[in-house]
């Protein structure tokens, strides 16, 4: 039974890594997607500079999520990656354009706008692809034996497109509230306005996805609405509603960091809701956490590393954020004073 416990623990570790990725690269990608709404070069410079020192660390959680899945749940990795082949490739290519734009943008004057397009387009494609991948996994994939047994367009359904839009809206909200926290003046005012609209869009998307999910599989329906599960699931939509109200008020009252923090909380709650739908499967309706888990000695070998290193990683990541804390201005002096 020991391996059962450690498999569960690893499911939480992977879920944690993916969540860290979603919220941390979420605001980076959100800022990228908001680029077209801020046409002035000076604003864009500031927007990019709010995340330039930390984006690479944020994206590393994606590598931990993917690499960790391969290490801890190789069967799930082997089934899911071919199943969401196209969205994954699209995401990777989006991330290539978005990632290089951080440096390339400053290495050229004449083509800077071209890298602005790469930054915005890459962010949008990556966010959309991640949302589609989420929907494609939730709606279930065809499995035979230890293989994915479907085609390379199976992921494309109205539901996966809906989750794609949901993630785009959610990342946009994270990006806008991050800008509220990190900027000043007109840029910040614009970010407030956008936060409001993006919160509405995110909420609509959450409601739509929540309504659609129980109809995907009978199991999801039972999970959410059967007695006594509903005792545990009912607080989730209630919490979403409550957080939304507080978040709306914090935006209306022009709080500084509160909208961003509350957006993180909103993400955490909806993420927990996804967990309720997924459990105990890692490939929904086909492969459970325990079926996919690597042998206990692989999971045990890595748990030491996680137990020791993740707190250290969180500590120096926090330090890096601390070093670059505070508002970013366009005209606050050079490096060489």
């Amino acid at each position, binding site marked *: 039974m020991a391996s059962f416990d450690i498999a569960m623990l690893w499911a939480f570790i992977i879920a944690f890594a993916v969540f860290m990725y979603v919220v941390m690269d979420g605001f980076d990608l959100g800022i990228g997607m908001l680029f077209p709404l801020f046409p002035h070069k000076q604003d864009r*410079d500031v927007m990019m500079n709010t995340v330039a020192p930390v984006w690479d660390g944020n994206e590393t959680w994606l*590598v931990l999520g993917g690499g960790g899945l*391969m290490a801890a749940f190789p069967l799930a*990795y082997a089934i899911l990656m071919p199943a969401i082949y196209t969205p994954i490739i699209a995401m990777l290519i989006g991330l290539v354009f978005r990632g290089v734009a951080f440096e390339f943008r400053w290495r050229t004057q004449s083509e800077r706008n071209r890298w602005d397009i790469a930054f915005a387009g890459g962010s949008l494609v990556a966010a959309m692809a991640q949302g589609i991948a989420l929907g494609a996994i939730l709606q279930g994939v065809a499995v035979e034996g*230890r293989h*994915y047994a479907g085609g390379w367009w199976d992921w494309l359904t109205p539901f996966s497109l809906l989750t794609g839009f949901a993630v785009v809206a959610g990342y946009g909200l994270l990006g806008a509230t991050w800008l509220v926290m990190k900027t000043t003046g007109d840029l910040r005012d614009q970010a407030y306005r956008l936060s409001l609209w993006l919160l509405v869009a995110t909420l609509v998307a959450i409601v739509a996805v929540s309504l659609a999910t129980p109809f995907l599989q009978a199991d999801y329906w039972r999970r959410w609405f059967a007695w006594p599960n509903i005792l545990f699931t009912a607080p989730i939509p209630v919490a979403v509603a409550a957080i939304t109200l507080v978040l709306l008020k914090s935006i209306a009252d022009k709080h500084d960091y509160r909208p961003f923090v509350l957006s993180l909380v909103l993400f955490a709650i909806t993420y927990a809701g996804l967990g309720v739908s997924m459990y105990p499967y890692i490939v929904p309706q086909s492969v459970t956490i325990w079926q996919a888990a690597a042998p206990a000695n692989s999971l045990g070998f890595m748990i030491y590393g996680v137990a020791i290193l993740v707190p250290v990683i969180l500590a120096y990541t926090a330090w890096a954020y601390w070093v670059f804390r505070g508002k970013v201005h366009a005209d606050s002096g050079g490096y060489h004073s």
Partner: protein
Amino acid sequence: MFDGLDAITLARLQFSFTMSFHIVFPAFSFGLASYLAVLEALWLWTGREVFINLFNYWLKIFAVAFGMGVVSGIVMSYQFGTNWSVFSDKTGPVIGPLMAYEVLTAFFLEAGFLGVMLFGLERVGHKLHFFATLMVAIGTLISAFWILSANSWMQTPAGFAMNSSGQFVAADWWKVIFNPSFPYRLVHMVLAAYLTTAFVVGGVGAWHLLRNTRLEGARVMFSMAMWMATIVAPIQILAGDQHGLNTLEHQPVKVMAMEGHFQSHPDGAPLILFGIPDQDEAKVKYSIEIPKASSLILKHSLDAPLNGLDTVPRENWPKIGLVFWSFRIMVGIGFLMLGIGLLSLFMRWRGKLYDSKLLHRYALAMGPAGFVAVLAGWVTTEAGRQPFTVYGMLRTIDSASPLDAPAVASSLIAFIVVYFIVFGMGVFYILRLMHQPPHHGEEGPRADIPARAAGITPATQVQG
């Protein structure tokens, strides 16, 4: 564009394409991170301005190269699942943890301190900034440790058992990590990365010395690079030789392909310098050979017997021509590197290190040589592992994802187009940065658009 190719061939093309692009950037930024740490240490130690100028000069280039390494690396971490899902399922329990440790011990360390290294000098003070630079450099080393361990395990698998699901599982993690070829491969690759960077630095130094022999920054970087060539190139040849002997012990077929030995030689095998290997006819055409020299190199005895590919079933042969030629390219460049190391030592002794146009042109021409050698060496070892993914245990043909050829072809085309555009522009920007001479008061990345937050205590007050 790729009609008639099956999904596995396309997946192999895709992996080799994305990998070939990727390996260039980490090999460079790996060496460059260490070089930057050395420059900053020298600056802190001596206080000479030239070192901080060079540091900032190369930091700008590092920022661009590192970014490209990151994004092309993320692609690699998903290639295993997208195109090689059966391989991932079967080997995930063994090499997955090695890669997970790479992320935990190396990638986060690099990424966590990169921001401070690039933009934080004035915020955190000199000592803490140097610490950040060191952490990035150490992170690249740790990264090389784990990924080469995983790669070496595919070449010389050890310490494993099979479970009932047909997966490789670890029986002894120590033997998995320190598998037989790993120490040799690690040393060989680390030295290769250092040499690659040294030759880029030397090439840039030479480029500016050819225009102005008095330029201090160019002199310093050129001299440092030439010391590396003089000292490290011979060590690398020795390390490569030892790596080859290790390969002979554990992967003799690869060495047969490298040497072009189709036939067995019971009393001394010739060293084939050049020739055209013909896989179908199982012979090397038009070969130029030194009798018995191969036995001398590999067995340290003129008459030592060496088996040839005639002792190996054909279905276990790699592509002989590819391994044969890539090996010769790598070795050839190695000796050209040794040559520049000796020539520069001679010029240094004669006091003409900064004035010899011959040496500078030679160094300039050798600027990209390290990349070619790294790629050629990589092809030698990886193509030489075929037709297996886990040597002798799991065939490549049994490793691929159950995908339709059009899916793999489409993604391959997408990667080719995107990589050539994106990384082509990146290389252009790097060359443009290199074209500028290092100068007095050199600024770091993003000096034109500062990112300083309001209300921050100036670093100088925190640390002297």
